[in-house]
């Protein structure tokens, strides 16, 4: 029960942090852009529960706030980064899309980190470290050439990597079903990689599957996990989601990963968890706004 509580807490932290980032934009504290992870929280939290970022390696995407928060639970360094403050995770150089700490690296090119993840996995194989690489990608990246090259290389060199496809159904505004021929599972099969799908927003289930797959990865066998998900926010901050139907939205709202736990674990003290997370996000936000204002005062 304690475990489920932690999973919920991390998911809610991501949700509330992303909502706060939207608010900070609206209040004029942020410039640039951001790609929210609202709705997809179960994947980062479920998979990364089994990763030790001091040893293991994680490559992210342009949409990686969730991955970062699942590992650090530190909204302050993320807010700071987005505000360009020296307390940011990459001291303000990177911004929303370019995060890095320990063995975690993201970048702003769709799919570009996937071949690099394969190379890092090859390095771990050569070093016989027993460490695993987790490489996140979206359904849009499944149509990038070098991602296909990376799958082939992972299979040819048999490297310890878990590819995690966060299929939220859209590459920006383009529906995946209209843009991707065949099926992702048959593409992955075609490379001789083992394909596993989770068609659920149940973080407990995702976590269990990821744990099993990572065990195989650490034994030297590359693995591929697709999780069907949905984002309840725009592709980026400037996207009003005009391509989404009301019906579709309602369907996925019913599958909200937070709601799922609330309905299935009624004995958890959700109000207390909510209070704790809200306090944490508010405190971080207040601190960073204060620093921001003081910085302006100095200009």
């Amino acid at each position, binding site marked *: 029960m304690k475990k489920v509580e932690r999973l919920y807490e991390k998911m809610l932290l991501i949700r509330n942090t992303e909502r706060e980032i939207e608010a900070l934009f609206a209040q004029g504290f942020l410039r640039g852009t951001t790609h929210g992870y609202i709705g997809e929280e179960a994947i980062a939290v479920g998979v990364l529960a089994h990763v030790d970022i001091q040893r293991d390696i994680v490559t992210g995407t342009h949409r990686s706030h969730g991955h970062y928060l699942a590992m650090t639970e530190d909204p302050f360094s993320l807010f700071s980064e987005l505000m360009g403050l020296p307390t940011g995770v990459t001291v303000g150089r990177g911004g929303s899309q370019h995060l890095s700490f320990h063995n975690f690296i993201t*970048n702003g090119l769709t799919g570009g980190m996937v*071949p690099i993840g394969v190379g890092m996995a090859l390095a771990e194989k050569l070093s016989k470290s027993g460490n695993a690489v987790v490489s996140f990608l979206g359904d849009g990246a499944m149509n990038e050439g070098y991602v296909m090259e990376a799958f082939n290389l992972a299979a040819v060199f048999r490297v310890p990597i878990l590819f995690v496809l966060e299929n939220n159904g859209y590459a920006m505004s383009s529906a995946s079903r209209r843009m991707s021929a065949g099926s992702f599972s048959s593409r992955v099969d075609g490379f001789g990689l083992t394909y596993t799908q989770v068609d659920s927003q149940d973080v407990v289930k995702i976590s269990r599957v990821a744990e099993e797959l990572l065990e195989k990865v650490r034994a030297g066998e590359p693995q591929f996990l697709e999780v069907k998900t949905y984002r309840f926010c725009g592709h980026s901050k400037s996207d009003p989601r005009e391509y989404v139907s009301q019906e579709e939205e309602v369907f996925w709202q019913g599958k909200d990963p937070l709601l799922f736990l609330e309905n299935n674990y009624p004995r958890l003290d959700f109000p207390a968890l909510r209070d704790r997370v809200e306090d944490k996000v508010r405190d971080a936000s207040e601190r960073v706004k204060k620093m921001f204002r003081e910085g302006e005062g100095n200009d």
Partner: protein
Amino acid sequence: MKLSKALNHTLAEILQKDARAYIVGEDIAEPYGGAFKVTKGLSERYPDRLLSTPMSEQGFLGLAIGMALRGYHPIVEIMFGDFVSLCVDQFLNHASKFVDVYGRSVPLVLRTPMGGYRGYGATHSQSIEKLFFGLPNLEVVSLSLADEKATSLQKALGRSVPVLYIENKIDYGREVFSSSPWVSRFSKKEILGEEGFSHFRFNILDQDPGGVKTLVVTYGGMLSLAFEAVWEAFLEEEWPCEILVPERVSPLDVDFFKTLSTRVSGMERLVILEEGWTPFGWGSEVIAALSERGLPKDLKVFRVGARLENVPAAREMEEKVLPGKKDVLEAIMGKGSR
């Protein structure tokens, strides 16, 4: 010794001394030994250290970047320089970014042969290193016959940034300077700069460098052409030139540029020779950088490079597009430019 052999020895030495060095590329292992045989025999001596890859240039460059991020020292071979177009995204949008956005070390060298004059046609004859000039945290280093033991390769791998390392196809079969016919005609002086790279000055033997009126600046495979043209200018026109060749071409090596600025004063003409297309090329940058410091008042400047056409396969047509001895000679003698 032929330049490809020197390079092969250097690669072997790197693998011998540095357990973290790996060679990554297509068809590099025995029995093939690389499209230009530069890695010949290495897979027999270091079987675990050559990673033969499928034909996926952007994929395996990304793979090598990942290795570099994890403390390895990959040397990537891209079979033809023309194919580096496939690598731009991984080089520019990934490897380069990790250096200063994240403060990470990326010790990676991408070796590739540029250049034409072999009738390979439009997609196997280009010199397109300029795609990588002037980009942050990406260096471009070129091998020439002056670097007789290909030590610039070791220097390149010692950088903590990704380096594009340019070789030239027709140089592979040429003798390095000291075993070439040019050694009896030119003196060579190597100047090791503070940034770790050398540059070379060549003067006609027994000629006073003080009497030189034309400076020829070039790099890589064009050094042979510079020797030919400069020698002919001396023989036919009694016009002595000096040749200046840097190892690192981008960013401009500080000490090379110092020598260049010093030597250009008192010259009547400056000729910048490169094999790639002239417009927006290396020569343009060299001249701009010199101009900012103030060019000598009467200096005439000439850029010699390829005409802005795709490189044809047929010999006579290819010779018209790529720079030739006549073009360099005309520039040296102050007639026209291309």
